[in-house]
């Protein structure tokens, strides 16, 4: 989807890596573009082959695939919070992992600052790992219970060999903790995870993610396991870090109302594709894709006097192995027309940064 923050004309063609083999080496990363979008994804695909039993694979005429991502067009700006929303299994995590190069795309292109992610050399990848971090849903499992907070946050510095003295290490750990709202940091340095609350533990994870000064943090349901009273602080922290550190956040959530609070843009995914994307206010107040309309209609609101019509879809997301023909949403779409079963919708520009892929749209 060419929903652009920078117009497509500026979008770099796959930049020419310097190495002879066409591989991206660490020097390329250092020289990489300072303007333009952080990521440019074009028709990105991640298909996982299905493991079949021996006999089945012998007789099968065609290998089957899970179409986890199936044609993602997306540009991600520097320093924005982009929310990825959609039902479980729609590909949110896979997209996040692909941006981190934890997953390799099987088709299309994914450019980071103009450099093709799939062509990164081992060394370049190591460099890239400092720039792209992830935070998980469960702060309980994400950190080692036997390490002190200091050691947990210092670990990425050691693994990546970026500090040269104890003093520097301590200074950076303290800075990261304070940036993550654990103030004064000295009070926390020598505590263990079990001596912290759930919210504080998630802050430790965030500190571990920001300590290397990343461009990108993929936050995969970062507040799903936290209580409301705590989760809002974490959301505020993400906004603050975007503003002060210029970090780009990919905020993965199935809760649209959280995306509504903090994200700059929302991308709604269904079966491996972005079906609607736009500025947050626009998507929530003026959803145009039938799937987005349904998702928004079922968000519970803390006000019993607001009774509104809910569009409750039947069934659940089908598995992405045998995709429906035409519009992949048609079997569940309340507004489905006959042509939807045959024709594949393309992205329609709805003004501003707002795009949706539905045959009903002008």
């Amino acid at each position, binding site marked *: 989807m060419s929903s652009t923050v920078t117009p497509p004309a500026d979008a770099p063609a796959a930049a020419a890596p310097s190495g002879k083999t066409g591989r991206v080496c660490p020097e390329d990363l250092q020289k990489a573009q300072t303007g333009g979008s952080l990521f440019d994804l074009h028709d990105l695909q991640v298909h996982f082959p299905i493991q079949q039993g021996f006999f089945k694979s012998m007789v099968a005429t065609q290998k089957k695939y899970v179409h986890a991502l199936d044609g993602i067009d997306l540009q991600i700006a520097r320093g924005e919070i982009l929310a990825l929303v959609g039902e479980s299994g729609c590909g949110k995590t896979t997209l996040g992992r692909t941006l981190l190069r934890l997953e390799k795309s099987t088709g299309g292109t994914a450019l980071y600052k103009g450099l093709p992610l799939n062509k990164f050399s081992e060394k370049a990848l190591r460099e890239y790992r400092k720039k792209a971090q992830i935070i998980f849903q469960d702060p309980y499992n994400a950190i080692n219970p036997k390490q002190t907070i200091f050691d947990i946050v210092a670990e990425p510095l050691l693994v990546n060999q970026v500090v040269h003295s104890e003093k520097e290490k301590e200074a950076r750990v303290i800075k990261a903790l304070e940036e993550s709202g654990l103030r004064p940091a000295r009070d926390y340095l020598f505590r263990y995870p079990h001596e912290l609350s759930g919210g504080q533990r998630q802050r430790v994870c965030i500190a571990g993610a920001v300590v290397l000064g990343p461009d990108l943090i993929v936050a995969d349901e970062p507040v799903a396991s936290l209580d409301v009273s705590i989760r*809002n602080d974490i959301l505020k922290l993400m906004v603050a870090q975007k503003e002060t550190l210029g970090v780009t956040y990919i905020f993965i959530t199935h809760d649209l109302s959280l995306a*509504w609070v903090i994200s700059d843009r929302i991308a709604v995914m269904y079966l491996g594709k972005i079906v609607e994307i736009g500025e947050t206010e626009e998507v929530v107040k003026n959803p145009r894709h039938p799937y987005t309309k349904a998702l928004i209609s079922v968000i519970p609101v803390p006000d*019993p006097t607001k009774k509104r019509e809910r569009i409750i879809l039947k069934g659940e997301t089908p598995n992405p192995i045998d995709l429906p023909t035409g519009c992949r949403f048609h079997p569940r779409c309340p507004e489905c027309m006959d042509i939807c079963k045959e024709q594949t919708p393309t992205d329609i520009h709805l003004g501003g940064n707002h795009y949706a892929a539905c045959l009903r749209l002008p």
Partner: protein
Amino acid sequence: MSAATAKAKKGAPAAKPAAEKKAARIEHPGLLDVRDLKAYFRLSAGWVKAVDGISFTLEPGESLGLAGESGCGKTTAATALIKLLPENGRIVSGEVLFDGINLAKRTEFGMSKIRWKEISMIFQGAMNALNPVKEVGDQIIEPIRLHDNIGEKAALARAKELFELVGINPKRIGEYPHQMSGGMRQRAMIAMALACNPRLVIGDEPTTALDVMVQAQILELIEKLREELDLSFILISHDLSVMAETCDKGVIMYAGRVVESGSVEQIFNNAEHPYTRRLIKSFPNIHEKREMVSSIPGDPPNLLYPPPGCNFSPRCERCFEPCTSVEPQLTEIEPGHFVSCHLFGVPDQATQDAASADVAATDAHLAAALEAEAQ
């Protein structure tokens, strides 16, 4: 199973017009009347006061939401109602009047006549705790056979009826848990809770782990069942929005106590307790102005050593003189609307003395119990 057969079995009359129903309700003493219930857990360090004096009532056919932050005692309260507390938990005092019978005093034998048949529960996280190597259908049939004392064939037929009722194709009765999606498994758990035609079902976070769309489907199903089977429902949730949307009444808990209760309109449009107000404000509302939601500074207290006076006082911005020493009492501030906060009147000396004497007696009793067990 049709609604009519379900009711016939209990000998209840067929569906009445709404007005008549309402009139009948007033004569009834209420289905459930929980009075100052306390349920504690024993640890080597002392007693965890997980539920420390909660009160609320439930009329037949009503749905009640029980909400509050993690650890405030929702699950403990629910398991205390049906006397399924874990090994180290016990009801310390208070009453649970179900149809006028005090369950708190009932023996295990007495409870076995009520549990599942009159009151059943969908346990928190149970949909993820199904036995992975056993067919889901079998896991549903088991309790039916146990409680209804019927043959295998009849039980199977009943299980199929139940699957149909909760919207699962009865053909899937032979599937294993991993073959079903989360939403499907939760439907199966609901079927299990309905197996013996209870009048009251307690759902402990039945939609928490589910996607919004599946959550909406499950809530819609519960609503439908409530109507068809004339069920009363207690919905436990940490998500106030879910309660606002699906319940008639709400009970807000904080650190083992009820801080506010009333109709959902009273709770959401006219909240009075400082904690309730902050809690509501921490939920985003997409129908209002887009703004950062607020949080509640500080943490809930450790229930092994709750603070004296009002439990919320260490975090309350309106805390004043008696709050850190005198415990507030649940007071009716308008019909049906209860608040436990000194801003609505400090209990008089006699009430205070009675309350402290009560607490002292309980503490002494518990200390003695601990000592006895240590020997």
